[in-house]
């Protein structure tokens, strides 16, 4: 927790250079490397510290990936089963029975294209929301930028996304829908969704340390979120008058953009722009909230 730790760059360099020739030659820097004292109010986010621990982010992500499907019979198939079966059920109830419109795309494909990013987002938020509490043993025993924990939980979901995306391509071939140049936007969209999930997840994880209510509220909120996002229905179903309300949910603009990317339809740049703006606002807010609450983690958890 470097809430108060002000690092002095020249001092760090001095320390690092003496480390390369070890033994008794350590030269004390003029100014302290780190000053530990109580902090108050808002604390700036120390990006340099985060960068120094980038290996830890990678390793924790790999740990989550490796551990996720250990001792499961179906293994990584689970990454596909979740969106696939939800899609089948939705197709039956909403596509067939309720006759939900789907912008001229076969309903199963339409639903799967929405469920793919949604599954990634909801799993990422759930996992990272519970990540700090689940890693309390680390938090009480060793220092590192705490933000890495919720971040790693989001990162490990990316592999599932890639696997589930493979099934989408298969489905598209099956329904005779070709890939288009719009697919080039996919990395940008995945990046945006990851940032959004990190923001929400980080915020939830910090609240969860203090208020364990989050653990119960989160699945419920995510369930609601699914209906507030155009996943089983197209955004065109919402009357124009109320459409703006829908764009206030940053995920809505992203989900529609995923569909545009997959199916070669024109992007709604305004919706995506609002979504990107809100996403950035959320992550910045979440990061500051997190920093503010971080100092009490070890005492509360």
């Amino acid at each position, binding site marked *: *927790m*470097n*809430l*108060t*730790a002000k690092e002095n760059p020249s*001092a760090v360099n001095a*320390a690092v250079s003496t*480390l390369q020739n*070890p*033994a*008794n*030659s*350590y030269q*004390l*820097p003029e100014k*302290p*490397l*780190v*000053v*530990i*004292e*109580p*902090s108050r109010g808002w604390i700036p986010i120390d990006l340099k510290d985060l960068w120094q*621990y980038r*290996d*830890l982010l*990678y*390793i*924790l992500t790999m*740990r989550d990936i*490796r*551990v996720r499907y*250990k*001792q499961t019979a179906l293994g990584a198939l689970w990454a596909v089963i979740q969106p696939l079966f939800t899609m089948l059920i939705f197709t039956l109830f909403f596509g067939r029975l309720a006759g939900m419109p789907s912008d001229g795309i076969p309903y199963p494909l339409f639903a799967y294209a929405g469920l793919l990013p949604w599954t990634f987002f909801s799993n990422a938020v759930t996992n990272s929301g519970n990540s700090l509490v689940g*890693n309390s*043993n*680390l*938090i*009480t*025993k*060793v*220092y*590192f930028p705490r933000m890495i924990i919720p971040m790693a939980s989001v990162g490990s979901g990316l592999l599932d996304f890639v696997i589930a995306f493979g099934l989408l391509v298969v489905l598209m071939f099956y329904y005779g829908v070709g890939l288009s140049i719009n697919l080039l936007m996919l990395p940008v969209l995945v990046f945006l969704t990851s940032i959004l999930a990190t923001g929400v997840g980080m915020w939830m994880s910090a609240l969860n*340390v*203090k*208020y*364990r*209510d989050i653990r119960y509220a989160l699945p419920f909120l995510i369930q609601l979120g699914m209906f507030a996002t155009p996943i089983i229905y197209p955004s065109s179903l919402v009357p124009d008058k109320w459409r703006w309300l829908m764009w206030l949910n940053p995920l809505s603009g992203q989900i529609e953009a995923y569909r545009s990317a997959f199916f070669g339809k024109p992007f709604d740049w305004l919706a995506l722009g609002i979504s990107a703006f809100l996403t950035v606002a959320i992550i910045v807010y979440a990061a500051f909230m997190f920093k503010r609450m971080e*100092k009490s983690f*070890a*005492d*509360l*958890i």
Partner: protein
Amino acid sequence: MKPIIKVENLSKQYSIGGKKEPYSTFRESLSNTVRRSTDVFRRTKKEAENSFFALKDVNFEVMPGEVVGIIGRNGAGKSTLLKILSRITEPTSGKIELYGRVGSLLEVGTGFHPELTGRENIYLNGAILGMRQTEIAKKFDEIVDFAEIEDFLDTPVKRYSSGMYTRLAFAVAANLEPEVLVVDEVLAVGDAEFQKKCLGKMKDVSVQEGRTVLFVSHNMAAVKSICQRGIMLKKGELTFDGKANEAVDFYMQGGSDLASFQEWNSEQMPGNDSIKIRRAAVYAAEKSVGEPILTNDEIIVEIEFYNNIDRGNIDVTWNLMNVQGIHVAHIGTVCAQDGLARGWHKTTGIFPSNILNAERYGFSVSFGRNQREIVLHVDDILVFDIDDGIQRSGSSFHKLPGVIHPLCSWKTNATI
């Protein structure tokens, strides 16, 4: 010379409510807000009552290359001090200036994941302790060598024996290269041979590599042998700062209170969600608590605790240490063959007479589950003296040398 660590007026205050109830709910904080706004005066009074200082106005400096032992009884603030130094928690007031990188080892195997292999865990643990991947790769062979686990590198660590696990964990940590190494009681685990190896490694770190070490331990022999300087904390305050030998002596005599009997009220009971201890006592059979214990007395040690693991396979283990820090005995029992019910229990043990020498002893107690996992551990829960009970005629008033003093039967026959 300039110090590498400078601690000034360091204090850490915990509110008891905050510590005992590790998390709150929205409802509670809402109702607190209401109460606060309506009753300002009572709040300030209540807060003062419900908080305590884990550390109070602690000042000291450490010079580069010094090896400092931090000693004191449970709750003296040692762990809090290390946690602040390692930036895990913040002080309430005061400050610390660090003129070098600090690597802390507050627990062996922090972040080890049971499903991952030894190899994967080396990288994971190294990264958690702040090492870069390239740094770990460079040290990889050395770590494996030190841990002696070559053949099990690709086995998940959940299949490791506890000894292998500890060795691997210490090996990773021992290869950290910060200027300041902070170590908390990690040597309490592992077999004697391995403990020796770890102590040796720590000596190397300080003597050959010139690094600064802060070392918390209840093992006075270890403190004496590797530290030059000793700092003693008592109830959050620094009560002694000087040579390691003198600090240990101070701790042994006045520093640590004799406590052959301890009882706690429900607020202060040591324990956790699983086990809480209400009372512990050591006394001579057929005498009452507090009377002197003699070498020829049977010694009764008992503990009253609340078991919150219903039908848990709970065991109680006592570790007896003498003032030299020698581990004299490891005794204990499984509490019930078919699981112990939830509720209050008392476990009593009888230690045979005429075994222990006259000396000052400390008992630590551990509660285990399924004889695998330690649920609760309290160091030095009982500290007591055993006096010489044998009326010897003649020469010596002094205590006899030796760890034990068994009553032997002798005879001398004439031989050819």
